[in-house]
């Protein structure tokens, strides 16, 4: 019982939740792609349609809100400190355990992330939680209030860890610990 799980269950990378499928639909058929008719290739045309208007991703009036999947994408690629795997593959981070309440009209929006350690006495739960926290603090606009916690019943000392993770002063002092930040920096290197 050294607080390390040598043979954890892992999820297949292609099974992880992703937005990729949705994006791929937009790709045109190869039959016609690259077949811009000669007449449409006039460099002198006054309104050259290089940025097509029909493309929703180019239309700023269509707002894409920050949602659970986006939070998941931000933290699922964080590397586990002891396995050469990501938090997503180890199911430490799960899409259904992320909640976003984003109300642009309110002053404060909320993000809740619940982590599931690979074993319930995982000695690195705090470090993982800290890594997730640092990542989100760097990647989300300041109007979001973060709540990173261990999912109930998945860790022997979950309550204690949660206290550490959500105590501003303790987080701040952890961030000044060089060794700790070294570990966290390593974890964040794999973020895509």
């Amino acid at each position: 019982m050294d607080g390390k799980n040598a043979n954890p269950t892992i999820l297949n990378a292609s099974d992880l939740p992703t937005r990729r499928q949705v994006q791929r639909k937009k790709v045109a058929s190869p039959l016609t792609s690259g077949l811009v008719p000669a007449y449409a290739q006039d460099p002198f045309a006054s309104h050259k349609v290089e940025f097509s208007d029909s493309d929703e991703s180019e239309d700023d009036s269509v707002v894409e809100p920050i949602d659970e999947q986006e939070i998941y994408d931000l933290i699922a690629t964080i590397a586990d400190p002891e396995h050469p795997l990501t938090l997503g593959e180890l199911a430490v981070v799960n899409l259904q355990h992320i909640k976003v309440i984003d109300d642009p009209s309110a002053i404060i929006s909320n993000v809740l992330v619940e982590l599931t350690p690979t074993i319930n006495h995982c000695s690195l739960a705090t470090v993982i939680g800290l890594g997730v926290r640092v990542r989100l603090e760097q990647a989300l606009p300041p109007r979001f209030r973060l709540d990173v916690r261990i999912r109930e019943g998945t860790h022997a000392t979950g309550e204690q860890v949660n206290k550490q993770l959500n105590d501003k002063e303790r987080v701040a002092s952890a961030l000044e610990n060089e060794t700790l930040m070294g570990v966290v920096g390593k974890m964040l290197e794999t973020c895509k």
Partner: protein
Amino acid sequence: MPSPRLYILSVDKDPTEASRISKQAAKQIQDKELKLLDLVQSLGEYLTDDDKTTRAKAIGYLSSVLEYLDPKTLSRQQVAVIVQFLCDRLEDETGLKETSQGLFALQKSSRFGKEEATLVSSAICKVDLQKHPQGTRFAVLTLIDGLMANQRDALKAMGGKFITSFTELVGGEKDPRNLMIVFSLVRVILVEFDIVPHIEILFDVVYCYFPITFKPPPDDPYGITAQDLKLRLRECIASTKYFAGHIFPQLIEKLDSTSLSVKKDVLQTMTACALSYGPQTISAHSTQLWDAVKFEVLNSAEEDELATGALSVIRAIAETLSFGLKSPPRAASPLARYLSGIVKECLKLLQEPQQKQAKPAGKILSKSATASTVAHSFIVEKTMPALLLIHSDADGLAKQRALMEILNLLLESTLEIFGTWGDLTAEQVLSNPLTEYTDKLFEMYSRALMGSLREEMSLRITALKGLVLLCRIRRLFQESEIGMVVQYFDQVLLEVEEKEEIKELALQGLKDISKIKPNLIMDITFPAFMAQLPDSEKEVDPSKPYIATLEALAKLSLGRSVFQVLLTRLLNKLDVVLRGKSGPMYPRAILSTLLYVLRKRPESSQEDIRTYFARLVVPLLTKTITPIVDNSSEFSDFRIMTDDSILDVTGRLFNIIIRSLDFEEQINVSRQLINIFVLGIPSDYIPKTHAEIVARDFKPLQPTANREHAGCTILFTYALAGLRREVVLSTLSIPELIQQNVELATRTAHPTQRMAHLYLIALLANKWMKKPGDSDLLQKLTADLLESVSSSILGSREYDSLVGQKLQTLLWIAKAIVVRGDRYGTEVIEKVIGLLGDKNYGPTASKGFAVLLGDDEFITKDNYAIIRPLTKQKIFTFCVPKIVEGFRTADSTTKPNYLIALSNILRNIPSTVILPELGRLLPLLLQSLDLPDPNVKSATIETLLITVTESADAMKEHISSLSARLLNACMNREENPPRIRSAALRCLGAFPGVVRTDLLLPYKRQVIRSLMAVLDDPKRNVRKEAVDCRAKWYSLDDPEN
């Protein structure tokens, strides 16, 4: 006789002179003018000289002469005497190098016998070699190497005496070049000598070098790498089974090393030993090795070098233990005992197939199964029942999938062992142990692919991959089973709800099957797909989109015979669709399908593209032209063929087919097309019923032509583009045709037709205006066009669109002559640069640089256009200083013209050309970022991005203004569309890591703080870029913290 003195004096100062002297002496001996013994005697006084180097040089003289001497010159007796003499000299070790060289020269002689060999090797092995410099050691080792090659039996006869003294001689050698010789000598000894009593000494000599940690010095003259040494040492270690007891415990211990390269070396050495020590020896060590290396696999991540190395060891042991086995091993055999251990352990891990160590366990099983047919049989028989049980007991689909992944690995091994249908290799004698499970596997995989919920992506993908493997394994599935698989894949492909990912795999699966069973694709897939195509656009069923069906058909039809079928069926379909009074979309898609296949065909089959001229070009021409000249013809429903979007695809088909015709055929085609499009002469390509009417009424190049007729010009343009420039258009006056098209291009109200005329002009000017005098005609034409622009500038304050059209036409002509390197081209360009300062025509001129430098599909090498190499570079060098200067003096209303021109140039030039000019361009680029035009901005940011990554130095003075502008570009959403914002962020994010950190640190706070706002951008992609960019700036190390 040349005096030894001369040689001794010159050998250091003038080696060429020294070797000339010895050559001369050698010649004299050969010509019997000089006796070798006299020469030896003349050395006498020098050999007793007090100076060591003189003594050495004296021997060097003799050795050098011996080297130049024809080996046959010396008698047996002479050889014996000189050998004895030189061996005696060995006592004076100062001349060791020279003496060895002399002996080396002598041992090449056929008169150098066994006795001499024994004498020399005994004498040389007494030397205290390691106190000499490496060059001397090299000479000695080369001598022994020579003896080993020419007098091996003599050395063998010396027995243990040679082995022990040799090992003492080379012990402690460190020089890489010498070690290469030592290793190869030791290897010969290990393989051929009676070494049993000396194993330990030899092992110590070899093993003390393991692992090789040598790093070659940067100026290493011999070019010996660590890898060379490793390989040669490994060959030594693997060359005798007597090492087994010594080496394996040592290697296993070294596996604990923390160095990746040492562990890799250990595993590769184990593999080499396992493959060469033989079954008896290996069976004694197999368990011990397996226990040692398995962790490297089980604890590995994907694509791990060490895991691969360890798998090779495991497989190599199985391969050696399989040696000589023709039938599955009996339980007590070494192979069975070895594999049983592996199977037992792996099956235990596979009970929970989703856990991390399951897949590695599967890899171990599948890799071992590739060791031999018998190993494969054993593993399949011992694991399949258990694996199938785990599958049927699995309580969730994810677990089933994980187990099927493992089964797929075993299927891959089976494919490797038994091969695929139609393989030329002999078939295995042993029957395939999977045959017993075929029905079960077929059922299980079919159910997973077709019977699970559509959303169970990864399960179904695993099943699909497995089915492809099952189909491919030679003589496993029946044809009927493969046919079923083809039907499954057809269903997946045709189902609109299926995701792209699985469709792509299904298509790839069908392609794989079409290689082994093409008949099944033609008989099952083709009819099924054709039946999906509606007969008219009105009938389109949203669940059966014709584009997807056509796409799948196209991708399956790259083979010749399949394409023939496709061509016939699609042309029939096209007629049916047209008769149903279709809109342009569907016919265009059908023609695009044919074009796709023709374009994708490999270069080798260009030949038979020609054959489609009669089947495709001629009928399409008729179907396009006859309906517009005769409303009552059978083709009257075909008028939609003159829709611009269809004409464009038809034109491309003409182009690609005509391009591959041979010269004679092209001449004929060019005449017929000119008759139809220009001269109004009846052509054989049009059916007799309509040839006359077409000749009379079809006049696309007349100003009076209506839109449908004029629109057909593009077909002529595409066709002409495909002709070789040597094909003389004898029935035409090219200048007249150009002039005519210039008129049409400037007058027509339809942009589409204008492009057809402009491309036609450019093609004619580039490919067919080559006669003397043609250049003058072109010059006059461009001068006239320029003249109308300048007179408009002088005469009026307003923009005249007719003049604008003339300027555009001019630029296309300029392009045609610039790319072929005409000097006149640069004069035109200079005038165009001059126009950038004009407020009316400057914008047109600035866009013209996209014409001059941009790529189009007509003026290309494939279309036989004249394109001089490096023209783009030349235009760049010519234009840039003028544009920079023009920009400096321009007023604020026309400054943007220069920036747009510049961006059009940069967009079309390789970055290597831009980099040297960058210092000059940066100020302009920075100002381009302030222009509202997104295209300019995009080109500028692209250039900056390349610059940052490839020539960060050029940026260092501009970081402040650059970062401010890029920040503005990603924060100001009013002016910058999402794509620009993303590009700006990418560019900003490229700074850390390439620009010196101390130059960036002053901006770190500001960048990170400003980007905080971008984290709330409405667009997800922009936010993503902002996060990445910020992370890069965060990671900049501040030395003060």
